[in-house]
């Protein structure tokens, strides 16, 4: 049996690129996710310029032809969901927080964890390469409905389509590997004394997200194999002229697609819950009801998928089933939001940057959730489906999830991750500079959507009703909003990289929080805990009468 070999301090490659330390792997995911977010943001800039100022030369891109518009829109959607929201929310925060918050030294299977990042990096490279192949990136929408996605004759980007599919399949493999690791670690490697209801809610939500992803990704992996053969081996799985059925892909895709949006929602809700508790100095209101509501959301997310297909040619009678289940799932989500707001009651709320982001998430996500009811009820969906109303709805859910809650998490755990504090005033400037323009982008799009603007259209010149000047002004206003929002991201990038080196040095517990990751030095050493902690109580003991501090860390015995 090889004894634990002591070896010299590892070099740059072994320490940062080939490391099995969960914190390093978390940083790899975080930085890859942020890089892809810049690409996704650039793509959004390109097509918003085309929509805001039709057929003008877009500085930094050139003329946006219909084919390039489709590719840019498809890649914006694909990158933002699969290569920004999932890696940062699940893989980066999951990898970083799970071992630290449940009190163990690393993930249960560190080498599988490292492999999952490597497969993810490969998938990102394959996706970016698909921009360079003949015909350009895949242009058939991120949902890739066959027969458009199945044959090059229809989508005119045959190489791009296959590379897109291979990249998404690799990304699924990466998240299956990572997900299994998260689930096993949280189930088995909890600190002694940490019972089921002592686990911080963000860990619960990240693990439930990975389980929902695993259960829902399976059929789509099978669907992807079939689509790959349709594209390359001339099979007819989705080709109606040869016994296949294009609706089969839509069902397999959305059976994964809707649980997928809850897969990215839950970690975001977890991050926001942690921050609300710390900055309101208050125990989470009804931890158990939050947990059961999360379980309810997870289970129900598997029976709602066809509300994406009300008018897609499914049997009209099925739509009634799915509109009822869709309204049903809005109940546990409403319960979660009410519990979050109730947590603020009786607190002493400090509006530091992380809390601003958390409250910003709640305020914006409520609008997203509420506009979903219009699309979930089948009657109004007939008119609103695939219009800009739908685009505005899911950006009011996705932007709070993938951008606002990620900024909340980064500003909250930055001291722990890098041992330095981020600048508060820059943080506040960046917050207001992101949230206000975000509304300026999407409120006008609600209106253009109501006026009938359909999505994925590079120019409305052909449509008389849609080329009214009033609508074009709204589109231009929305583009201006995006330009302002993108420019404020420079404030964040400066604040992030400047604080890495020159930020005020951070102590172990700068926010005076109770969870285990704040009991180790910042940044935590390899192996995290000098002495593996034992847990004595739940994670949110704030404001206890009769104690000196207003917080009671989980591992303090008395």
């Amino acid at each position, binding site marked *: 049996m090889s004894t*634990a070999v002591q070896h010299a301090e590892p070099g740059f490659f072994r320490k940062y690129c080939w490391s099995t330390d969960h914190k390093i792997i978390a940083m790899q995911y975080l930085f890859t996710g942020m890089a892809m977010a810049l690409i996704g943001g650039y793509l959004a800039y390109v097509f918003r310029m085309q929509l805001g100022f039709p057929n003008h030369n877009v500085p930094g891109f050139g003329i946006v032809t219909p084919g390039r518009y489709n590719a840019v829109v498809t890649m914006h959607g694909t990158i933002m969901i699969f290569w920004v929201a999932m890696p940062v929310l699940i893989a980066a925060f999951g990898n970083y927080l799970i071992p630290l918050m449940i009190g163990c030294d690393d993930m249960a299977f560190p080498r599988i964890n490292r492999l999952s990042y490597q497969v993810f990096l490969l998938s990102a490279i394959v996706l970016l390469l698909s921009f360079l192949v003949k015909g350009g990136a895949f242009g058939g929408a991120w949902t890739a409905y066959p027969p458009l996605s199945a044959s090059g004759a229809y989508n005119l980007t045959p190489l791009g389509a296959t590379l897109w599919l291979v990249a998404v399949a690799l990304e699924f493999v990466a998240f299956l590997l990572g997900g299994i690791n998260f689930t096993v670690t949280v189930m088995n490697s909890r600190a002694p004394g940490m019972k089921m209801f002592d686990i911080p809610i963000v860990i619960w939500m990240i693990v439930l997200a990975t389980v929902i992803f695993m259960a829902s990704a399976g059929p789509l992996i099978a669907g992807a194999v079939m689509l790959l053969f349709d594209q390359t081996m001339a099979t007819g799985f989705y080709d109606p002229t040869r016994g296949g059925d294009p609706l089969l892909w839509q069902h397999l895709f959305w059976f994964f697609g809707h649980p997928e949006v809850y897969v990215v929602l839950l970690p975001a809700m977890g991050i926001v819950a942690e921050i609300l508790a710390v900055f309101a100095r208050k125990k989470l209101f009804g931890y158990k009801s939050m947990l059961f509501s999360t379980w309810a959301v997870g289970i129900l997310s598997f029976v709602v998928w066809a509300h994406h297909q009300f008018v897609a040619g499914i049997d009209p009678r099925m739509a009634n089933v799915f509109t009822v289940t869709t309204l049903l799932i809005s109940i546990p989500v409403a319960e979660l939001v009410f519990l979050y707001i109730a947590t603020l009651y009786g607190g002493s709320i400090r509006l530091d940057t992380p809390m601003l982001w958390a409250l910003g998430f709640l305020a914006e996500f409520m609008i997203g959730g509420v506009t979903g009811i219009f699309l979930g009820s089948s009657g109004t969906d007939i008119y609103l489906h695939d219009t800009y109303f739908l685009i505005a709805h899911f950006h009011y859910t996705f932007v709070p999830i993938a951008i606002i809650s990620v900024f909340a998490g980064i500003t909250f755990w930055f001291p722990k991750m890098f041992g330095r504090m981020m600048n508060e005033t820059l943080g506040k400037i960046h917050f207001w500079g992101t949230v206000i323009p975000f509304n300026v982008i999407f409120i006008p799009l609600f209106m253009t959507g109501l006026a009938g603007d359909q999505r994925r259209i590079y120019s409305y010149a052909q449509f008389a009703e849609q080329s009214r000047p009033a609508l074009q002004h709204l589109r231009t206003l929305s583009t201006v909003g995006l330009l302002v929002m993108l420019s404020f991201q420079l404030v964040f990038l400066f604040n992030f990289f400047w604080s890495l080196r020159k930020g005020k040095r951070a102590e172990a517990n700068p926010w005076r929080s109770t969870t285990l990751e704040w009991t180790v030095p910042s940044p935590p050493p390899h192996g995290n805990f000098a002495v593996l902690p034992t847990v004595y109580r739940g994670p949110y003991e704030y404001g206890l009468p009769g104690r000196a501090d207003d917080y009671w860390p989980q591992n303090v015995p008395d």
Partner: protein
Amino acid sequence: MNMDCRAAPTTTGPRTFLIRPAEKPTTMSATAKPIANTRSATGIPTARLITWWVIASEIVIFGGLLSAYLMHRLGHPEWALSADHTNTWAGAFNTFVLLTSSLAAVLAHKAADALDGPRAAKLLRLTVLGGFVFLMVKAFEWTTDIREGFVLSSGGFWSYYYVLTGLHGLHVLAGMVIMLIIAADAAKNQELQRVECIGLYWHFVDIVWIFLFPLLYIAR
């Protein structure tokens, strides 16, 4: 691997396990197991727990593919005509081969429980041999089908037939490779708990074939 510290057996549920108490983490090299791997809050060792989760996600993958095939099969009675060309005898023999290799796998697990590493390794290699025979019969079937002109793109049934048996065959191949690695360790009485895990995976692949056989070969 700190072999020295004895862990008190704890009886949790029908199975009794040796669970090591949490202790000070040593500065580990990349290959040593983290403490997280050795803990077992659920009472199931991490190796077997991750195997159950692998099987759970495999159920959903094969489930998705099989339900797509079943829907088309029930919708297209004419597929039964091309299903006639599948060689039921080869399928039946393959089922027999996989059942026998599952027997060898579970006997290997029994040997591993008795801490008899070399015997477990021998039985695991027997299982791999069974898998190899299965793949050979599968190769024979495919060549005869292709020679008769039924290729991947010659109609709905054949597309599903090659994707289903191909995906299943890849899983058999992957299982064989991992089994050889685990057998090499088991022969030196190392990591014996992994023998049971690869056994579980192998039985799952066998169950998938148990459902594939009637669906592809027998159903008229």
